[in-house]
């Protein structure tokens, strides 16, 4: 044993991967603004530009050659060249053309016609370029990645990205795909309110029951969390993935356009003019947060009009939306079995919580002054950065989240059969059994939906599956088991099989509002000349991680049971380990995998001897206690 340990010093660990030292960043990819932050030993730094600005406007301008300009500069171009600039793209992630909200009968986006066979994911025409929301979001993420790399002076390839808690599967998948296009490996998608709670919980050592009220540019979330001793347990969540500050802008813009119509008569607006109207409305909204009234000029075509607005009228315009947020809060609390009095504190997140009516209404409902001492525009990124550090460096904090929306399947008559109800802790897996309804039926169409309504067409369609290869049987004899699995990112995978025959039915996914794997790889290829290299590097890293895992396992086994081996056997294993160490140092993925396979073969006899010994010991009753105690040691490790 000693000899072997000398050959393989435990300290002589295989080559550290290059990415070990690499920092993972936290990104809040917002509707209006995005933020990137990094945490080191619990100290979070929100990364700023040369002008000291932390917020990157989520606005992208496209030059004629297709290159993207992101942020403040793009925002400035919005008024002069509205046709080649896009904003609030987050609202269209994982969405179809039918979800785009029009203003004055005109869409604020120029939408590409839908082609037969394509998924229903919306495609926009921006300055002559046809782009999906995923590609546009990827451009924003790339800008954030660049900012982080410039700041840290190193490559950044890992990130925690936040999403609204109420985002459905299509929206989450779209976000993850955007990150992939931007060359970022998503360590975890974290729900925005949960990230905010993490920032508050760790910063203020808050304990008890908290509500996080998150009203952003385009989305509203409310999460009810229990915080205690490093545990952040989400009990319930609710929201509206299409309700936010943008809707306030819409309401004001509508008001202005009505006034304009009264003065000038009916006028047709272009998509660009609609963008200008929304931009003006936003300035009015921001101004009325601190001022009581103001006047704005609206230029469209060759006509300029003047519009006055005071706080009281503004409040009337947005009252219905604000009331809706409180109604959702009430529903979440009631369903979880709580009253507003039970809530120890309310955390405000999102720029739209700066609107005075929102703040007043929230504090009135919960009966307490809300917490907003961490900048509501930055708190989510701060939480994301903390989680990024926790995932890479390690931590004692625990984030336990839930599914925001029920997941189900279409059954006879267009009804929904719920498989996983909302507010179920994730990760979760649940199976549902179905049967055939025709004799000899060999295929079955499965439609996966997400939402709370009873009818399929009232819910969000996620994907359609064709299950083939069911063995022909009498109607009702087949037992088809469909398993829904939601991972810690809140992403769903569906698998299916026939139980009586043991056949794993083939599942073919057609995402309703997403990209196929093929489209995705084309985009990857187009967007990065080195995409193939990146993919190869990722596979190489995976092979190394797996080989190191195998090597550590063999070392542990040798340490425990080395005396079961003959000198010759020990030498053979030692040689294979050396070969694997050499392979890991190289960059040939196949060589690493082959060496790992050889090591596995070389240790097979050893494994058998160890199992024999274990069973012998157990039968004689000698080692049970010893086993038990070492197991608990293992658990604590």
């Amino acid at each position, binding site marked *: 044993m000693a000899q072997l340990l000398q050959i393989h010093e435990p300290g002589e660990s295989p080559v550290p991967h290059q990415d070990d030292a690499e920092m993972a960043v936290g990104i809040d990819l917002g509707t209006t603004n995005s933020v990137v932050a990094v945490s080191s030993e619990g100290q979070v730094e929100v990364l700023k530009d040369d002008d000291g600005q932390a917020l990157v406007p989520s606005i992208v301008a496209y030059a004629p050659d297709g290159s993207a300009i992101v942020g403040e500069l793009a925002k400035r171009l919005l008024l002069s060249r509205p046709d080649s600039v896009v904003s609030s793209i987050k609202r269209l992630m994982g969405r179809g053309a039918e979800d785009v909200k029009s203003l004055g009968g005109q869409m604020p986006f120029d939408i590409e016609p839908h082609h037969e066979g394509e998924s229903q994911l919306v495609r926009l025409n921006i300055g002559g370029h046809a782009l999906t929301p995923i590609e546009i979001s990827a451009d924003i993420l790339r800008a954030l990645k660049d900012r982080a790399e410039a700041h840290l002076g190193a490559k950044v390839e890992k990130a925690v990205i936040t999403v609204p808690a109420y985002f459905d599967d299509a929206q989450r998948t779209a976000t993850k795909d955007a990150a992939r296009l931007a060359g970022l490996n998503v*360590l*975890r998608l974290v729900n925005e309110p949960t990230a905010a709670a993490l920032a508050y919980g760790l910063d203020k050592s808050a304990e008890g029951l908290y509500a996080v009220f998150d009203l952003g540019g385009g989305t509203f979330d409310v999460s009810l969390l229990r915080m205690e001793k490093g*545990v952040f*347990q989400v009990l319930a969540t609710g929201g509206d993935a299409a309700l936010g500050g943008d809707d306030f802008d819409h309401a004001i813009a509508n008001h202005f356009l009505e006034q304009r119509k009264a003065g000038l008569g009916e006028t047709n607006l272009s998509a660009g003019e609609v963008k200008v109207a929304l931009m003006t409305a936003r300035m009015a909204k921001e101004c009325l947060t601190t001022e009581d009234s103001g006047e704005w000029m609206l230029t469209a075509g060759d006509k300029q009009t003047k519009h006055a607005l005071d706080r009281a009228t503004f409040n009337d315009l947005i009252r219905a939306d604000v009331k809706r947020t409180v109604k959702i809060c009430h*529903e979440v609390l*009631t*369903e979880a079995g709580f009253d507003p009095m039970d809530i120890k504190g309310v955390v405000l997140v999102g720029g739209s919580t700066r609107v005075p009516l929102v703040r007043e209404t929230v504090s009135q409902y919960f009966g307490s002054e809300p917490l907003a001492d961490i900048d509501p525009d930055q708190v989510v990124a701060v939480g994301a950065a903390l*989680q990024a550090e*926790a*995932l*890479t460096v*390690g931590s*004692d904090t*625990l*984030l*336990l989240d839930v599914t925001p929306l029920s997941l189900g399947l279409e059954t006879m008559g267009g009804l929904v059969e719920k498989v996983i109800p909302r507010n*179920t*802790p*994730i*990760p*979760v*897996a649940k199976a549902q059994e179905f049967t055939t309804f025709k004799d000899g039926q060999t295929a079955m169409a499965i439609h996966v939906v997400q939402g709370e309504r009873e009818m399929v067409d009232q819910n969000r369609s996620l994907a359609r599956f064709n299950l083939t290869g069911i063995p022909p049987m009498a109607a009702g004899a087949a037992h088809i088991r469909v398993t829904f*699995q939601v*991972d*810690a990112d809140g992403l769903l995978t569906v698998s299916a099989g026939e139980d009586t025959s043991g056949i794993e039915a083939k599942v073919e996914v057609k995402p309703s509002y997403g990209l196929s794997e093929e489209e995705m790889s084309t985009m990857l290829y187009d967007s990065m000349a080195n995409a193939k290299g990146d993919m190869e590097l990722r596979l190489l890293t*995976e092979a190394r*991680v*797996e080989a*190191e*895992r*195998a090597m*550590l*396992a*063999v070392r*542990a*086994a040798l*340490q*425990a*049971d080395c005396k079961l081996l003959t000198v010759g056997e020990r030498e053979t294993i030692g040689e294979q380990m050396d070969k694997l160490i050499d392979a890991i140092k190289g960059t040939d993925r196949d060589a690493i995998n082959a060496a790992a396979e050889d090591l596995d073969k070389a*240790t*097979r006899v*050893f*494994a058998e001897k*160890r*199992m024999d*010994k*274990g*069973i012998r010991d*157990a039968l004689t009753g000698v080692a*049970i206690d010893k*086993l*038990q105690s*070492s*197991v608990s*040691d*293992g*658990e604590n*490790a």
Partner: protein
Amino acid sequence: MLDVNTQSPETHLKPCWSCKGPSPATALFCHTCKAVQAPASVDHFARLGMEPTFDVDVAALDRLYFDLQRQLHPDRFATKAPKEKALSQRQATALNDAYEVLKNPLMRADYLVHLLGIDVLPEGCNLVHDQSILMEAMEMREKLMMADTQDALNAIQRETKTEIDDVLSALSLAFAGHDIQGACRLTTRLKYLDKMMGEVRHSRARLMS
């Protein structure tokens, strides 16, 4: 404690998937190489390290659940090899499944009846056709349909809540006395009452809007 008919699986050994050595079938981590193991096939109580009982101390359950999730949650395996990530997800999933059932009295009762009475009631509680329970449910539903004010709904809710509390106390006694048939009947009644609570909430939401 309740006598659940299970073998003592801790005496079983299985090879660790990572170092291939012997590892107790119920261990979360291999005691030799510390690799996370696949979830063992144990009942929900054993999964959380509890004795089977209806009288679950929810605070204690939470503590056990948090302690286990701290070790097994996929967040702890973000930089680990793909196999370990996948196993951690399966472990955390099994843990969530057990926790969901045990923290909810209705699901817990249903599960416990199934666990204890698998021989007595192979079909579970669904075969119980109890006229008095059906009558009670119909009466309650009629009352609910008549209720057109928040006050009336509040009264029904209070009444239902009291009934639920009574059934829970009775269930505790039934399980303690190994009265599986009785526990089964009470569980069925609890299902109706639980449904009733849900309907009261619905009516209230309707009335508000």
